[in-house]
């Protein structure tokens, strides 16, 4: 039941059009028709009801009903805001990049319809700073939309006005978290806020704010144009529609694939993404980016949707599958994950700031031969003390996959500890010379560990930027 080839693509429909970023090409493929329909024939409430009936769920990770979220915004003449979250920085996710660079007008149309439905007059796209080329494409598209009267004052002569501003971030994973995004957009450090109040009541500039992912908003024109029933004909009862799935890691054909929710995971990984390299097996896979608990080969036949991933103890998240093959030690995978979250922790909540640090330390002890099997229990308890104890989910995003790795691969962790202990002992005895650089431990397990650190140590400036990671400094290195 893949979408490929049978003409049922929704978001990817016109992606082969060479000039698809241009407004004329978008219009010639039926673009902005949904907006005319919404603004001309429908009241804002009707649009809202249609979105709710479609069952469109947020595509940024949480999977909350988009229509419901929009209906939470208070009615009436107050300054309300729409923020499109294009701060895609979850490791493994690259779908928004493609949606923006291939079809920016689809997003703009979706945003304007959503703004109309919720009575919003100021819309922002918060795009991550690293997406320079994509932001250029989007800014150009926004200009074109303004020129043709699809955004700005008195849109399509309907009397409804909504400004649209592209805001470029400056590099911080945490700004993908919705309240940190709001702080960042207000010109502050991107620290998550305490909830309640939720952004729907008090968000950007203290006004009610609707925050949606790029993919969610890109679906809006299609729902409005073809109706909720049509949208429900894709996917499953509880997860209607299609999903952009980014597959990467140890697969032969990494890329973005649009599938119906409920497609077997095996089909996505093997048929669409080509599966792992020959002679290799899948050791584990992240079904929803690096923050989702890992699954193993036995889970490959599960349907890929919100419910089944949750039942298996993981989550669909942003729909980013990272495949890890059996040549990669699990300790390395854990270390890459932990280092990322240590770097990106904003430092506001202690369990996350300290927990990510200690997890990295413990994993490095394993690799340097200083760990004992008891360290695994310590590491698990650290994860347990992070989960649910912070303002946002960044700490949990490390704790969940790390816990799952220990759960699924405990024997391998223990073996790694024993092997490294023995190797370290031999070095101490003088039986063998201390390993250096690339030779340090065969295989890719030292990627970013021993050799990477050696590189860093040689360089005083790098050492300086490492210092900046000390508690209180969330961002830079």
């Amino acid at each position, binding site marked *: 039941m893949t979408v*490929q*080839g049978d003409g049922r693509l929704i978001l990817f429909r016109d*992606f082969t059009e060479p000039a698809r970023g241009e407004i004329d090409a978008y219009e010639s493929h039926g673009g902005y028709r949904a907006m005319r329909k919404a603004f001309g024939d429908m009241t804002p409430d009707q649009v809202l009801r249609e979105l709710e009936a479609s069952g469109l769920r947020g595509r940024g990770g949480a999977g909350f009903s988009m229509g419901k979220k929009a209906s939470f915004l208070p009615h009436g003449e107050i300054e309300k805001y729409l923020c499109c979250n294009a701060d895609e*920085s979850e*490791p*493994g*996710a*690259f779908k928004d*990049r493609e949606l923006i660079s291939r079809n920016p007008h689809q997003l703009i149309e979706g945003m304007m319809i959503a703004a109309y439905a919720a009575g919003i007059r*100021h819309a922002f796209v918060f795009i*991550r*700073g*690293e*997406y*320079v*080329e994509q932001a250029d494409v989007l800014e150009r598209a926004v200009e074109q939309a303004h020129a043709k009267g699809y955004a700005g004052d008195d849109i399509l002569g309907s009397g409804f006005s909504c400004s649209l*501003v592209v805001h*470029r*971030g*400056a*590099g*911080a994973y945490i700004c993908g978290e919705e309240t940190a995004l709001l702080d*960042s957009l*207000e*010109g*502050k450090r991107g620290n998550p806020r305490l909830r309640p109040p939720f952004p729907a009541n008090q968000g950007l*500039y203290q006004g009610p704010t609707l925050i949606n992912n790029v993919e969610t908003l890109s679906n809006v024109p299609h729902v409005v144009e073809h109706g909720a029933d049509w949208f429900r004909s894709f996917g499953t009862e509880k997860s209607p529609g299609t999903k952009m799935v*980014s597959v*990467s890691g*140890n697969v*032969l*054909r*990494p*890329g*973005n*694939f*649009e599938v119906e929710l409920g497609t077997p995971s095996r089909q996505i990984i093997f048929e669409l993404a*080509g599966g792992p390299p020959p002679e290799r097996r899948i050791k584990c896979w992240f079904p929803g980016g*690096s923050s989702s608990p890992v699954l193993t080969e036995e889970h490959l036949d599960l349907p890929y949707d919100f419910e089944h991933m949750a039942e298996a103890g993981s989550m669909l998240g942003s729909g980013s599958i*990272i495949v*890890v093959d059996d040549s990669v030690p699990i300790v390395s995978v854990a270390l*890459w*994950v932990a280092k*990322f979250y240590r770097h990106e922790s904003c430092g506001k909540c202690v369990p996350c700031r300290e927990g990510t640090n200690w997890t990295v330390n413990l994993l490095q002890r394993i690799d340097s031969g200083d760990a004992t099997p008891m360290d695994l229990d310590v590491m698990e308890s650290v994860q347990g003390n992070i989960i649910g104890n912070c303002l946002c989910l960044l700490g949990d995003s490390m704790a969940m996959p790390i816990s799952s790795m220990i759960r699924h691969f405990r024997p391998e962790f223990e073996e790694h500890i024993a092997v490294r202990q023995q190797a370290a002992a031999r070095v101490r005895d003088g039986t063998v010379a201390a390993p250096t650089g690339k030779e340090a431990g065969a295989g*890719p397990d030292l*990627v*970013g560990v021993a*050799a*990477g650190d050696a*590189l*860093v140590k040689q*360089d*005083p*400036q*790098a050492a300086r*930027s490492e210092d900046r990671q000390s508690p209180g400094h*969330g*961002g*830079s*290195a």
Partner: protein
Amino acid sequence: MSDVDANMKLDHLRGTPGSRTRLEAQVWSGARVEADPAAVPDPAVVDVPPQLRQAIEQQMAKYPDFHSAAIPALKLAQAEHGWLSPVAMVQVAAVMQVTPAYLESIASFYDMFELAPAGEHSIYVCTNISCSLCGARDLVEALSEATGAPLNGSSPDGLVHLRSFECLGACDIAPMASIDGHYRGPLDADDARTIAEHLRAGRPVQELLTEKSYEHRYSAEGRGAGQGPA
């Protein structure tokens, strides 16, 4: 501060002992600023390049609250000065009428701001999980060797600033690098040498390895699903 001290400080910042380049002048024109970080600078006494002032004011006009323009304004200043020198900070503070301390609090949070002098072209190599699975470490080493820049430092000629970066959202072209915002991948050691030569020759970055831009990949073309890269 004597010249000897000055050079020592510079070397520490740059990570490349003994080098003397045009960066040096930048550092020292920057370091001599003495502004109170907690005071809003007097716009009458701070000299701001007119084009920078105009660009920042344009950004401020885009938002309901001008503070939202802080990040865009710092980016403009960084583009103007090459890094966020104290001079650059004071200039932004003077135009926006905020304190340098406030700007520093932002600049120190986000990865893309350079608080120390940086090479002219920035190369961000993604070293996150998907790229690491595909050989990002070798790419970092190859780029470091080809450009002469240490990891997270600048090359002695001041041309390249090499950084390892968290996920850049291009796992489909792993291992990849962003050269002045232009994504290229998958890259190998030969490509690293090509990049270094291209930058040394002073050719435009957008012309660099265009076949490695993801625009040219099948999967990215959307015909994709199931066909994969060429």
